[in-house]
Structure formats: C-alpha cells, structure tokens
C-alpha cells in the first residue's frame, strides 16, 4: 500500500488506483457538497462523464477523481468548498 493525503488525513491506496477508487476502497462514497441543495456527492459515472467526483489536487480545482491516478506525493482536498468551479 502507498499513502497519500486527503483532507489532511493519510489515505492508503494500491498503486495504480484512481483517487476515486482509493476513496471508495476506504469506504468514502461522498466527498463533495452541491451548491444549491448542499447535497453530498461522490463517484457516479466512474469514467469522466458526469463530473460528480470533483476534487482539488495540489491546489488545482475541478479534477475528476475517477480519472486521476493516485500518487504518494499528492495532496487532495474535498471539503473546502462546493463545485470548485468558481476559482
């Protein structure tokens, strides 16, 4: 297992998994809150179509967790804000 940082906490993953796969494997299915209804969202389509699984990676917002290979030196934040489309 390799370790990355998600919201300041360590998250173990298997090298080769995406950020979304790593989160789901750790039991997290939701990591974002919608703008209007403040509803929890996580991975839905899993193949880069729906943009539900957006996270901020190394300070870059709007990254699709389902497409992004997890790396040990990666810092992921999920809860700082909502859609991440205002930055």
């Amino acid at each position, binding site marked *: 297992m390799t370790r990355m940082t998600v919201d300041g906490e360590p998250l173990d993953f298997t090298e080769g*998994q995406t950020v*979304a796969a790593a989160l789901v494997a750790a039991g997290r299915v939701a990591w974002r809150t919608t703008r209007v*209804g403040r509803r*929890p969202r*996580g991975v*839905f389509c899993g*193949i880069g179509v729906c*943009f539900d699984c957006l996270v901020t990676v190394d300070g870059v917002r709007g990254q699709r967790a*389902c497409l992004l*290979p997890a790396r040990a030196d990666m810092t992921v934040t999920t809860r700082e804000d909502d859609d991440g489309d205002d930055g």
Partner: protein
Amino acid sequence: MGTTGETADLVVVGAGPAGLAAAVTALAGGLRVALVDSAGTVGGQFWRHPPDTARAAIPTADLHHGLRDYRALREALAAAGDRGRLDLRLAHHVWSVTRDEDGFTVHTVDRRRAPEETAVTLRAPRLLVATGAYDRQLPFPGWDLPGVLTLGGLQALLKGGGVVAGDRVALGGTGPFLLPVAAALAARGARVVTVCEAAGPSAWLRSPGPLLRNPAKGAEGARYGLTLARHGVRFRPRTAIVAAEGTDRVTSVEIASLAADGSPRPGTERRVEADTVGVGWGFVPQLDLLVPLGCALADSDDGSTVVAVDAGQRTTVPGLYAAGEVCGVGGARLSLAEGRLAAESVLADHGAAPVLGRGRRAAVRATVKRHRAFARALARAHPVPSAWSRWLTDDTVVCRCEEVTAGAVRAARTDGGARDHRQVKQLTRAGMGWCQGRVCGPAVHCLVAPHRSYTPTERLVATPLTLGALADLDHARENTGGAAHE
C-alpha cells in the same frame, strides 16, 4: 522545431476495441498512426485495466472476456511502436478537433503528470473517431444519493482499481450489461441483492432470429446466468428500481413490477436494503468530437443518435472515419470488426494496399452485418420504458449538476413551451453545468420529446482544460514536428 507538418498519416481517437483494431490494421498497412486515449492504458471501457505497473497488485484477468484478442492487439501495437510508426498518446484528453483542406488538427492536453496539463496538437490528413459510449441514465427519486452509481461506474472501479464498491448491491435498468456487472460483483464477494431488468422475459422470443444466428451471445448469457445462480442472485424481469432512500448514503431501494408500458404497477412496491446501487439503461454514443465536424448523423434503434457511416465506416466528411459504439451500440466484437473495416478504408483512400485479403474482408463485413442485426434486436428487446417518467416526483433532481428538478423540466414544457432539451436548458439551466448535459440530456429529451431520437448538443470544447494549457497552444504547435515519444 517550429514545424506544423503532419505528425501521422492517421490519428485514431479512442483506444478501446474499435480504435485498437483500427490502429493495428492501419499500422500493418504501413501507415504512421497517432493513437490517443484519455486513459493511462489501452483497452477502453470494455478492456479497462489498471496501469501496466500495477497488474500484479490489482489482478483483473478474471473480470475480462476476449483477453486473447486484447493481448494480440497490444503485441501488435508494441511491435509497431518499436518500428517507430506508432505515436501512442495515453493520458491525453482531446478537447477539440478542427478540419481544413489539409486534414485534421486534434487538440489535446497531456495529463500524464495531472493535474499539470500540457497542450499537444496532432495533425493528420485522416482522422478515425472511436470514442465509444457511456451509460444512459433515467433519473429516479434518490438517484443522486452517494452510493448510487452507473453500471459502468461499478465496472470501472472493479476493472480499473480492483475495488468492489459495496457490500449489498442492487442493480437495475435494462439490457445485457446488467449481467456481467452482476456476475463480476458477485464473484468478487459483493452480495448482489437484486437485479431488476425492466424488459419482460419474452422480449427475445418475439424475434429470436438474431439470437439464433449469434449462438455465442446466447452462450455468454447462459454463463452469466450460471454465475448468478451459483451466488444466489435474484434476477427479476419486468421490474425496476423506482426510488433510492437514505440521507448521507443510500440504505435501501424501492423496487416495483412494471406494467407493459413500463409504469410501476401500484401495490407491487417493496423495499430492499442496499448500500450500493448500479443503474444503466443502455448506452449513449459519445459524439462530442463528431458533431462539430458536421458529419451526418442517423437514428439508431435504441433512441440515440449515431454517426452515419457507409459500408467502409466512412462518415460524410471526407477523411473522417468512425468505428465502434459511436456508430451504434453493439458490443466489443462488432467494434473490433468495424475498426478493421475502417482502417481498410483508410488504407484504400490513402492508396495503400489492403491488409486483409478479399475473403477475410468479406468475413469481417459479414461479422459486422450479423452483429448489427443482433444489436437491433437487442434495442427492440430492451427499450427505455415509455412510461418511465411515472416514477419521478416533482422534486426529483433531473440535472445533477445544476440541481434542476423534474417539476421544473415539466413546467418548461407545459408553461414555457419547450420542445427539446436545448429549450429546456435555456429555461431551467438543465444541462448547463459541469457535464454539459451528457448525463441528463437523454432523460430531459425523453420528458419533452419522447418520440424523437436524442441528439446531443454541440459542445465546442469536449473536455474542460486550464487556461494555462490554452496559453500553451502556440508552444505546442511549434512542437508538433518533434514531440517526444515515450
């Protein structure tokens, strides 16, 4: 440096079965090929794999079919790469394609070091689009709860990351894709509590011809049936998941028997506990790159619009070819055959000798014909139920991005006079968010214009990209002649 010359004789976008078969055939015919895919490894959704470096840590061979073909295609790619004729562009996202008198310019961003992006521009006189399809979704109350995924999403987590998304999984929708997803999840230890197939068990008996002419498909179905039986999975025909319940995550689903028109039969509703749900109603062809190029589109038999191609997979735009699910959803064998045929047309139009002999080409054409007939029968047997919207409540979210409800979409139709999904978008913002209507488009279309095929909106930018990558474009253009190949 500073050249803007051709990078290849052919650019192939999409490295799934169709794109792989096309690239390998064109390479065998002596062409220089650039093969582009957004994933980090070839295979598409059907042969989705973890990266090569993770194959030992994440075993997935048991989840796949037709791996012999996959390995042969990969070996052929590797051999062509050694000869310097393949420019393999993995983890490159294509965001726009333009055409001029010399051919096509394919704008991509290299995301191998994502989130960092570098603009890479590829040019070729010919372009082959094999961008596949994604799950078609019909909204239902609670479908936006965490733990509700598409069937393809469950499969991608499993095939790509070895992750079983939940412990108690309920699956629903229509079509044969339900079976491999259910079988794979059950084999990997999930408890598949129900598989709800909206179509009736007799759907195939009305026109059994195509199934009888494709016995391999019947055998495949029987194998899945055995796997499901072995794991005690209950397969429920003419049933649908009509609601998902829970607060922070789905905890149960409501399932109901369906009447012939697909409306839930009152009194048949019952609750099934589940922590994970997978849904899919067939597939939507991914036409984002094709629509702006202006090629003719056609109605398919499953309510979707596809790209129109001739018997050689040529679109109506000169130099533009298409293969696989963008031409109509029909499975991996059809995609492989279409990819080969498309590449043969590219070779012929390029003035190169064919790779397949005359007899072999005729056999591939016969395969395409047989599988298309099967796909048509499939579409007839597994339609989107005409009365599916009966399970929507006014406050059911239809557009997940902009959180537009079914009530708002209906009001746009009845009060606002909206006649298609574009007009609904103007009135409600449905389809205006991050996914640009890719998810809600088919459903919104069904709600306002159920008797016409769904044609996606023209999207000029097929994938979001950073301003930095855009600013990088001039630099990328200078590099097209000497891009580093890895």
